[in-house]
């Protein structure tokens, strides 16, 4: 099966007064229909920028400087604004972190769901409304016939995120980008939302790019993981492999900092000491060609401070590190 989304060597830069600063460098990954990839990393690693680059919604000053973003074979990085707009909300769509503010407070949820349907599928007001009700039912909102006329402030956070999902999936997109969709929600609601996403995925066959800093979420619902650090992909591979045999010290640090992580289908590991990764992600413009993690890495030595790390690995599991570690700590 061919990939829905195939990103090759994507580079995004920010135009600043002293010059051009790289934000994302040589990022490559792909997702097939019905599959999910997680982009993992601390904030400031470029996860959300990747999402916005795919959607063509980069903020002013940011631009795609190289590489390609192929959506079902079509390079969206090179599409003009209008053509891109026709894809957004239609063949690819996105849900955001804050369901409280991501919905427009002055329009009913029905209006906001129907909007994309009427725009992209040319449905009449009435048909769009019926489809919107069906979507609300699909995302398991009780009494959708009534809720369709509700305003966002009348719904709970979990409900609003369900509405966001209904809105994003209304046109049955081939690709869904979920940017930290559960961060703002209660733990119990988080699980429900992930279950819902998975069900909807099976139903529609959408490819999902899930952006998260929460590795516990990754374990359950994703097929692949790409770990980003300071705008670069430092490790990538099947979820089980990454979680069981992380090679990059940063990935291992991320895993070690999550309590009681269930490793895929494997039995729960004996609990480890929680570790904290010292230091912070280097800011934009402070990133040289060398391994960006080296200053925080306990293994950094010799080549780490002299040359960019080589990308090595077996099959689908790739890691960019001078000192890949074989076993989980």
């Amino acid at each position, binding site marked *: 099966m061919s990939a829905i989304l195939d990103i090759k060597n994507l580079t995004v830069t920010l135009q600043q007064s002293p010059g051009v600063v790289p934000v994302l460098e040589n990022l490559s990954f792909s997702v097939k229909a019905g599959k999910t990839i997680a982009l993992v990393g601390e904030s400031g690693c470029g996860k959300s920028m990747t999402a916005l680059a795919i959607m063509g919604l980069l903020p002013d000053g940011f631009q795609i400087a190289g590489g390609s973003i192929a959506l079902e074979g079509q390079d969206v990085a090179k599409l003009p604004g209008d053509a891109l*707009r026709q894809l957004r909300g239609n063949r690819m*769509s996105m849900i*955001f972190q804050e369901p409280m503010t991501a*919905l*427009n407070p*002055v329009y009913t949820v029905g209006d906001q769901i129907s909007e*994309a349907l009427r725009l992209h599928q040319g449905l009449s007001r009435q048909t769009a409304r019926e489809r919107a009700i069906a979507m609300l039912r699909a995302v398991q909102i009780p009494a959708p016939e009534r809720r369709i006329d509700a305003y966002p*402030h*009348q719904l709970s956070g979990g409900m609003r995120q369900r509405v966001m999902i209904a809105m*994003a999936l209304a046109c049955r997109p081939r690709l869904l980008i979920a940017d930290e969709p559960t961060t703002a929600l209660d733990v119990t609601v988080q699980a429900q939302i992930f279950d819902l996403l998975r069900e909807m995925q099976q139903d529609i066959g959408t490819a999902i790019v899930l952006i998260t800093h929460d590795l516990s979420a990754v374990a359950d619902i994703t097929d692949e993981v790409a770990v980003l650090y300071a705008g670069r992909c430092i490790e990538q591979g099947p979820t089980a492999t990454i979680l069981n045999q992380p090679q990059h010290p940063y990935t291992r640090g991320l895993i070690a900092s999550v309590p009681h992580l269930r490793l895929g289908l494997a039995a729960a590991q004996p609990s480890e000491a929680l570790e904290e990764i010292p230091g912070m992600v280097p800011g934009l413009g402070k990133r040289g060609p060398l391994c960006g993690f080296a200053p925080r890495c306990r293994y950094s030595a010799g080549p780490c401070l002299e040359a960019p790390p080589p990308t090595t690995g077996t099959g689908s599991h790739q890691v960019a590190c001078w000192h890949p570690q074989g076993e989980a700590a």
Partner: protein
Amino acid sequence: MITDILVKIANAALLLLAVVVLNFCLIHAAPGDPAQVIAGEMGGASQEVLDQIRRLYDLDKPMLHQLAIYIGKVLQGDFGHSFYFNESVTKLILQRLPATVILVLAALSLAVLAGTFLGVLSARKPNGLLNHFVTFFSLAGYAAPVFWTGLMLILLFASAIPLFPISGMADVARPKQGAAYILDVLHHLVLPALTLAIVYMAQYSRLSRTSMIDALRADYIRTARAKGLSERTVVFKHALRNALIPVVTMVGLQFGHLFAGAVLVETVFGWPGLGRLVFESILRRDYPTLLGVLFFSALLVMLANIATDIAYRLVDPRIRLRR
């Protein structure tokens, strides 16, 4: 929502009653004989007229009794008699009211529409030329006295650009009916309405710019863009309606100011409305007319408040559906 508005109306009625009481107090607090005050034209009223007034208002009875009489008269729509115009105050005011309402509504619509439009345009490019213009315009519009702006427009349009009439409400030589008359009034309306609108246009453009910039930064705008909506829909559907909420509030708060500004503008342009009446009654010390206008203007402000309250609820569902 209906109950809310009924409560507002009841509240408004109470406030109006308070205005009547205020008028009564003013008549008695003013220096001199209340009968003289009611007669107007200090010292000019004949003994006969004064006696008649004393009888009508029971001025020799206790205060509370007089107040009751006064309120009773007001409830019957009787605000007294203007001895200068020799006409009942109510009739006088009702004659002049339409002209003022036309002027105020025209100025208000112009200010809101043009102001919001300028604000929205300048919000799109926060560092653009238009933005600086809006900042300057809003400061200048605020600082220029409205009667002076009017005079400046008269200077400009009298000889340099003689496009619009600079005085009156209609050409006296023409018949007062038909479409030609309406067009003539509109033609005369341009300069007064523009004068009155400039101040508020300036303020609304600034306010709507700020609220538009805020709205355009909101998360729901990103959501709207992610849906693939056109830029126009994003700005004019999703951002504008949110940005309008503070503008609507401001319109309600400023209606009184707008009305007071109309007094000055009408005087400058000879517009035959309540403001012009106020000017004339100030010159003649015609107190009943003045107090009558005060009451009617409070009534107008109150109606405007109720209207903005309804508009506010229509724009913002969070207020409408609070309970």
